[in-house]
């Protein structure tokens, strides 16, 4: 089956982001494919290349990077949610004359059309919030 995931919560707070990550790995382990993971609202914080988490806890960014780089999973941050959280890629940082690009290159920034496309082209759409 083709899965897409919608992630609404930040890696810094709540259960949703962590559960989404573990679910994504389990989906692939069961032989399914993931069309896209779309991060919306607080979920866009996931794409931060700058966030620093406690060193004695599990890395919260690397598992997503691994999914993108080693399993070809597309990770998309909703642009309007991302911008207001200081999440900018190179192009946006230049356009808004912002001091730095802050998004890890494993993530793409795009619009809600990508979310709609994910819904239209997936057998399963699983949402993670809270």
């Amino acid at each position, binding site marked *: 089956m083709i899965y897409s995931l*919608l992630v*609404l919560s930040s890696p810094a707070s709540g259960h949703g982001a962590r559960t989404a990550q573990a679910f994504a790995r389990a989906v692939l382990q069961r032989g399914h494919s993931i069309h896209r993971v779309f991060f*919306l*609202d*607080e979920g866009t914080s996931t794409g931060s290349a700058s966030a620093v988490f406690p060193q004695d806890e599990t890395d919260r960014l690397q598992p997503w990077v691994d999914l993108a780089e080693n399993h070809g999973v597309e990770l998309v941050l*909703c642009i*309007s*949610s991302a911008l*207001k959280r200081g999440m900018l890629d190179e192009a946006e940082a230049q356009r808004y004359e912002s001091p730095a690009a802050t998004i890890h290159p494993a993530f793409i920034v795009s*619009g*809600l*059309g990508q*979310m*709609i*496309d994910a*819904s*239209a*082209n*997936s057998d399963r*759409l699983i*949402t993670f*919030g809270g």
Partner: protein
Amino acid sequence: MSNADKKSMLVLIRRAPYSSSLARASVDLALAAAAFEQQVDLLFQGDGVLQLLPNQQSELLGLKSIGKVLGSLPLYGIEQVYVDARSLSRYGLAGENFVVPVIPLEDEAMSELLARSDHLVSC
């Protein structure tokens, strides 16, 4: 985007309009679905029904009016939205002139609505 497999979507909206950023995100999501000609239904539940109130003077908060955006839904082909009847009752809004036509639903009808859509998104 391929038209081969059109999937219907139900967006369940549960947040008050101006506190959670998710409220605006969910409205944008509904509009995007409509704009891309996907079949989409909206169900407002709990605090979500408050997004439908008319006369939101959000400029006093320096924000765009969510009520105004929802009022434009018919332009995108969404002629009416569903609301949880119990939520209307809780807020004393049962006869209110909302920004878009609403169809109040009791529990059983809401359960049936969930079962009719291909995908469910809760924001």
